[in-house]
């Protein structure tokens, strides 16, 4: 479904990292207040909210919205694992596109650091099961090992991607990891090993955080924020897996990888665009080798050429198609619920030309991609008029 009649009215994000004092709901409140201020409205103007978090306690979506006021607006809890925030964004976009809401808000928050501290899995009753035995890191390492077998990819390629994202993160004020020096691939390779060939610096941190986006019809955005570049939501696709022989049903599963290709193709088709039109992309780089696969699956190079893209630094700031300009999951951080809305925040900041030292020149179209366990994939395309 084409969504050209939806525009971004406001975005807000609290810095990702470990927040010891504030609760998830308080982080959510802060991100939403930033987005409302950016939009120039208060909660009375919001017709509907979609709130996402992964942490399993019930009712937090409504409780988080109550921190902003009690206006009676409809609130829906959205949860789709790591893709949660971007799926909440999709729901808000469709609510505006359908005319059901003039102004819709998407909000994501999580305190992943507490889930990680909850010990060995930390997910309560689900922990002693077949599904919980294998780490997500191991799952993505299996991708990496197969890629190395088929394509001759070397750990240095993954290290180079991770170092790039660390260095992008250092330029982003809301990123968790802001290294005080230029991170090198050698440093990434020398960090603690987690699952061959992946090292700790190739992996995202379990973060706390919150992010928010407010959407409205373009006419309303122009009226409320005259003089600001108008950022439209062109498309937002969501798919689950299509069965192929050899499908893996048990364990941490985010695949098959082709799910990303199919979802991206749907998003491109709905937007009437192709990869050549995209100025910057944000993807699910929970582990650096994923990003390499997505260069191909999102259509930015032919199959088997992702390694060349890395070697030529075409996905760094200043390159042909900068990826994860805010540091991505690896450096900006990956709290879960808000991650997709942090991607939207970065794309909107870039398309408005407000990204400072990490500004992509003439940024016109941004792509946000996430996968989530289970598994799902979602891709959104945004463009500046």
């Amino acid at each position, binding site marked *: 479904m084409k969504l050209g009649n939806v525009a971004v009215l406001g975005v807000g994000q609290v810095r990702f990292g470990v927040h010891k004092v504030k609760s998830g709901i308080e982080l959510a409140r802060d991100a939403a207040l930033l987005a409302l201020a950016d939009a120039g409205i208060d909660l009375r103007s919001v017709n509907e909210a979609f709130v996402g978090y992964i942490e399993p306690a019930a009712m937090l979506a409504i409780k988080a919205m109550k921190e902003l006021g009690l206006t009676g607006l409809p609130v829906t809890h959205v949860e789709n694992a790591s893709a949660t925030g971007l799926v909440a964004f999709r729901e808000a976009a469709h609510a505006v596109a359908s005319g059901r809401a003039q102004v819709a808000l998407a909000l994501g928050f999580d305190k992943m650091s507490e889930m990680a501290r909850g010990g*060995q899995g930390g997910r309560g009753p689900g922990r002693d099961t077949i599904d919980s035995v294998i780490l997500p890191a191991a799952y993505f390492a299996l991708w990496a090992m197969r890629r190395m077998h088929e394509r001759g990819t070397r750990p240095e390629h993954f290290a180079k991607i991770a170092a790039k994202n660390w260095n992008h993160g250092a330029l982003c004020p809301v990123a968790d990891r802001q290294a005080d020096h230029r991170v090198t691939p050698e440093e990434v390779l020398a960090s603690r090993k987690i699952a061959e060939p992946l090292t700790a610096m190739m992996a995202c941190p379990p973060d706390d955080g919150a992010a928010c986006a407010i959407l409205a019809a373009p006419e309303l955005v122009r009226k409320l924020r005259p003089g600001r570049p108008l950022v439209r939501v062109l498309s937002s696709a969501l798919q689950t897996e299509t069965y192929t022989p050899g499908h893996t049903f048990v364990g941490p599963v985010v695949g098959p990888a082709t799910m990303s290709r199919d979802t991206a193709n749907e998003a491109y088709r709905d937007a009437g665009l192709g990869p050549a039109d995209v100025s910057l992309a944000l993807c699910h780089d929970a582990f650096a080798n994923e990003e390499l696969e997505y260069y191909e699956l999102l259509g930015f190079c032919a199959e088997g050429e992702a390694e060349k893209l890395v070697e030529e630094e075409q996905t760094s700031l200043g390159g042909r198609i900068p990826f994860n300009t805010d540091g991505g999951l690896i450096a900006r951080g990956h709290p879960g619920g808000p991650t997709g809305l942090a991607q939207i925040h970065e794309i909107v900041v870039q398309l408005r030309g407000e990204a400072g030292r990490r500004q992509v020149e003439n940024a016109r179209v941004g792509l946000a991609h996430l996968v989530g366990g289970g598994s799902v994939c979602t891709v959104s395309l945004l463009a500046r008029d």
Partner: protein
Amino acid sequence: MAEPARRRVPIEPGFFTISEDAGAPPQLLGSRCRACGEHFFPRRMVCARCLAQGCEDVLLGPEGTLWTFTWVHVPFFGQKKTAAAGYGVGQVDLPEGPRIQAVLSGAQGDFAIGMPMRLELETLRETPEGEEVVIHRFRPVEARA
């Protein structure tokens, strides 16, 4: 009279067989679609390929081919187990079709993509009643030279 072997119980019921013979390999509890013949693990009622209802129960394995593997340096996700040297994880293609993701038995360096693998049971822990909690894993059929 020899001391009887400890009773073995699965980490979760419904995924694999446990033989009375401690040396016999487990098999996986799978399904086969009566309409199109596709095999699945774990068991399911509706065929994921042709959507026909009423898959029949079959046993899968115990042998397959290693599709990919890794060596994990951090503790198990759902367990307290901390193996200092780490442990293997892999995906094994069964001749019937399903690709099985499981822990691997063996040392780092024992594995190669394409090698034949066989199922076995690993004891994860003991229950307060003295039962052994087991899970399926794969081991290289022959150790590499």
